[in-house]
Every structure is written in C-alpha cells, then in structure tokens.
C-alpha cells in the first residue's frame, strides 16, 4: 500500500533529471517514449505503490512540476 502519491505536470517539465537523483525508492525515471510541449522527455513515476510521499523530488524540482500527497 502506497504511503504517498506524486503528480507531475509533464508539460512544464524541462527534463533536468534532478528528481530522479533524490528519490529514496528510485521510482522516478525519464519517459523516453514521450516528448512534451517544451521538447523534453518528462519525468514520470514507474511504480506509484512504492511512493512514500517524502517530497524530496518536489523539493529539488526547479520548475515546481510536482505535487505531493500523503495518505493519512
């Protein structure tokens, strides 16, 4: 059971990959199958069930792409 949920506004992601480096459960990857409106491969989550809702990804994101929710 996931403890948290992250939502990415993929259209404003600049593909810098910083979020992928700070995720403690390593579930963020760059989606190489998609190109967003800005022309970048956006970040995405592979296995949301593993998310712990720590907000590390959102804390380091320079473009405020990520919203984090935590289950009570």
């Amino acid at each position, binding site marked *: 059971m996931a403890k948290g949920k992250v939502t990415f506004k993929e259209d404003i992601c600049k593909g810098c990959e910083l979020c992928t*480096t700070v995720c403690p459960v390593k579930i963020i990857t760059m989606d190489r199958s998609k190109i967003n409106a800005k022309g970048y491969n956006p970040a995405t989550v592979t296995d949301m069930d593993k998310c712990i809702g720590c907000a590390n990804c959102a*804390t380091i994101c*320079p473009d405020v792409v990520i*919203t984090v929710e*935590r289950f009570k």
Partner: protein
Amino acid sequence: MTIVFERTKGLTDVETHYCPGCTHGIIHRLVGEAMVELGVLEKAIGVAPVGCSVFAYNYFNCDMHEAAHGRAPAVATGIKRVHPDKFVFTYQGDGDLASIGTAEIVHAAHRGEKISTIFVNNAIYGMTGGQMAPTTLVGQKATTAPGGRSEEHSGRPIRMSEMLATIHGAKFVERVAVNTPANIRKAKKAIIECFKVQLEGKGFGIVEVLSTCPTNWGMTAPEAMKWLEDNMIPYYPLGNFRRPEEAE
C-alpha cells in the same frame, strides 16, 4: 489524502525562462514560500537585478521593481525609506552583487538598511554566456578564462558573506546551498530567519545561496549539483556568520 507539497502562492503561474536544472527556480520558490509563511506577500516589494534573474519580476507574486546592474540595494534603500512599513528584498546574482554592485551592497549593509538580500552565487556569469566572475573558483574554466582561473592573474574568488559579516550594520549573514533536499530545507529556514530580521526592524540581512549553472559549467544538472558539493562548498563554507545578538 493530504497535500504535503504544492505550488506556493508566492509565485505567479508564469513558467520560468531558466535553463533545465538551473537552481534559480528552487531559490525563487523558497523566497515565495518564505513570504507566504511570514504573511508578508501583500506588503512585499522585491527588487530584481540584471543577470539571468532579470525577469524575476514576472515570477514573484508581489510588487516588483527592476534595478540597473548591481544597484538593487540602492533602489531597495529608497523604497524602504519611503515605505518603512513594507517588506523589501533584493534578489541578486554574483555577477550583479559581487562585481559591479559591490559598492552598493557594502554600503547598504554599512548603513544598516532594513532590507533583505538573496544572493545567488553560481561562480560564473550566466546570462552573458559563462564569463569569469569574481566568484569563479581557481582552476574553473570560463569563456574568458579558457585555461581555468589563474590565481596569479585574477586572484582568489571573493567571499562576500565573510566580508559582509565584518560590517556592523549587517545583522544577519548566512551561506546555504541548494544541492540536496536537506540543504534546500536548511536554506529555507535561513531565508525565513533573514526576513524576520527585517520585519523586527533589526537591520540588514543577507543569505548567500550556492547555486549551479549546468549550461555554462558544461554539465548535466545532477553533475552540476555534485560539482557544487565537491568544489564550491570547500571554498565557500556553509553556515551562519552573523545573527543580530552577535552584532554588538
């Protein structure tokens, strides 16, 4: 479900023009969050610099003013003296504050102006294409120092926080970094403490934020964060240099 992280009201909905991985975006957000948490957004007036963050007035959700290169502390002085009840901050880079604007920042601190400064130090001139700045590290390559900065030719990089901490009017001086989530959280605490020094009428405050420039450093964003940690933090040590109670 509880939302634990969302876009702060301290920022507008405008997407920034910054390069991918540029830490200006993180620092903008911290300043916006700090203003919201202190409840000063409605009475805040920011002064934007010249440099990469020249368009900062589009991104902060408060009244903003643009200043000539390096002159943000002088403009902020005027605003604060006319509107002493407002919250006034400057947002400046190292090419702005540590080079052409050295006189303005030193004398704003020396007069003890009740303003707050966010000083973003990425050790290079970003907007103009990666020239050597006063803060560029010895050996670091720049377009005007293709073999790396030479100490014999250009001296060692200037440590602004240490210098400003010797000035009596500077009541809060701290250096932070935004290379890891833990350091980003510490940076936000420092910014809030710095803003409080102004709100309590104690005097001048500055937070120096070690930042990256992946584009002009020629690195990916994660590599730039590592470079900051390995090269900048040893020369620019993190920590507080001055609090109001220590200033006497």
